[in-house]
């Protein structure tokens, strides 16, 4: 194809967008609604995922070491735990450190524990982290059976519930995405059906004067591209603005908490890029679908 022909196609596609007033509006609206839903959904899902990961990563196993254990016994236990498959790290925390932590976490009220500083009733602790949070329970059970592991704590019950909740949330997310895509396809194919009627004559005439199929397709391809990109503008702006407000509202409440929502950057830029891409694909696909039928001789 000659450069000037491509230029002609680009010009033609812009002209078509401008002149097909309400059809452009209908198509852009369909893309806009779809992308808005997809965009909101993406943001929610990515944040949920982030929160889930934060929670998962915070799960740790606390192995209370029997007071009768000698240093040798402790070393042996540490090696045994480290040797377990799926263990990422193991850290020793002495009973003095444990008491200090306890007092700090309780603030003013913790000061009453100062009296235990001479005769500390707590145990030394190994803090164990699993590579995969889901392995936590299994690892904990293995450690329980080891010598000198006095007590093993990983938030029994709570962790199981949490993992169950996260799985459910993700599955619901997948179902919603499927439903959303289905709705989008329905919405867009309806718009296509409307445009087909308007396009039929146009294509018939193009073919009569001897336009090849690819010559006919190009302007439609480009038009779809512009419509898709136009359709992504409103969702991107809306999502950026709303997310910004959301962050202003939520961020101050999360200071110091181990759960954090995603920052504006790069999340919004990633989602925007994805929406533009998605808009372009939807637009081009829809446009080519609407002419395909008429290109068979």
């Amino acid at each position, binding site marked *: 194809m*000659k450069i*000037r*022909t491509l230029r*002609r196609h680009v010009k033609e596609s812009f*002209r*078509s967008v401008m*002149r*097909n007033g309400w059809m452009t509006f209908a198509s852009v609206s369909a893309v806009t609604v779809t992308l808005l839903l997809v965009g909101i959904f993406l943001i929610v899902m990515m944040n949920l995922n982030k929160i889930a990961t934060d929670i998962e990563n915070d799960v740790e196993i606390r192995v209370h070491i029997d007071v009768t254990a000698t240093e040798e016994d402790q070393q042996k236990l540490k090696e045994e735990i480290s040797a377990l498959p799926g263990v990422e790290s193991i850290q020793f925390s002495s009973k003095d450190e444990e008491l200090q932590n306890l007092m700090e976490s309780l603030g003013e009220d913790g000061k009453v524990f100062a009296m235990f500083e001479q005769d500390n009733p707590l145990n030394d602790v190994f803090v164990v982290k699993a590579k995969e949070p889901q392995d936590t329970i299994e690892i904990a059970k293995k450690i329980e059976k080891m010598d000198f592991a006095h007590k093993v704590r990983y938030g029994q019950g709570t962790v199981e519930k949490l993992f169950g909740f996260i799985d459910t949330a993700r599955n619901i997310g997948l179902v919603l995405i499927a439903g959303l895509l289905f709705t989008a396809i329905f919405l867009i194919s309806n718009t296509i059906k409307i445009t087909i009627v308007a396009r039929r*004559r*146009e294509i*018939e*005439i*193009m*073919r*009569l*004067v*001897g*336009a*090849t*199929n690819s*010559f006919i397709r190009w302007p439609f391809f480009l038009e779809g591209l512009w419509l898709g990109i136009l359709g992504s503008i409103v969702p991107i702006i809306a999502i950026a603005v709303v997310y910004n407000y959301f962050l202003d509202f939520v961020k101050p409440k999360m200071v110091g908490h181990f759960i954090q929502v995603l920052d504006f950057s790069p999340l919004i830029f990633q989602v925007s890029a994805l929406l533009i891409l998605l808009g372009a694909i939807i637009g081009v696909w829809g446009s080519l679908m609407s002419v395909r039928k008429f290109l*068979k*001789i």
Partner: protein
Amino acid sequence: MIEMRGVYKKYPNGVIALNGIDVKINPGEFVYVVGPSGAGKSTFIKMMYREEKATKGTIVINGINVGKLKDKQVPLLRRNIGVVFQDFKLLPTLTVYENVAFALEVIEEHPKYIKRRVMETLDLVGLKHKARMFPSELSGGEQQRVAIARSIVNSPKVVIADEPTGNLDPETTWEIMKIFEEINMRGTTVVMATHNKDIVNRIKHRVIAIEGGVIVRDEERGEYGYEN
């Protein structure tokens, strides 16, 4: 130039539109195709620009065997044939100029040439001053003149017209016929299906009459031969 041998056309619904057509039209001829409604005139015309394929028989246009043409090659055939319809078939979103230029853009002509050639052709049909208007702003006769301009802008050897004056009043009809005469005088073959008795009887040319899918009459400088 245009040659049909034993052309037979049966539509999927069982209707036999053409039942053995043999005809030869020489370069530069002006031919009327007449006959009652449903006689096969339109199918005969559509065969030439391969809107319809013959069930049997051979059709050769400008040396191209239309029957053996692959779908992908059809555009090449159509670039050598201008087609004019009763309902004009203009693109409503394009201006007069753009509608005519379209036929040249398709063959990737140079923009400078397109500009010159389109204005030349619009001048020929007397619409140079309305180049920037849209079809909806023109009268029926003017729209048909735009359609004619589009059909001849790429200098085809053959112009095919299917009832080109069917939607026009008598006065406009004569204007349109004058343009076809002019095109023919310049050496282009014109094949025109028509129901207009006055035209055929006053501007004498070869007349091919089709009835029941066969040619029943083929006369030089013939008469229309039917009542209107």
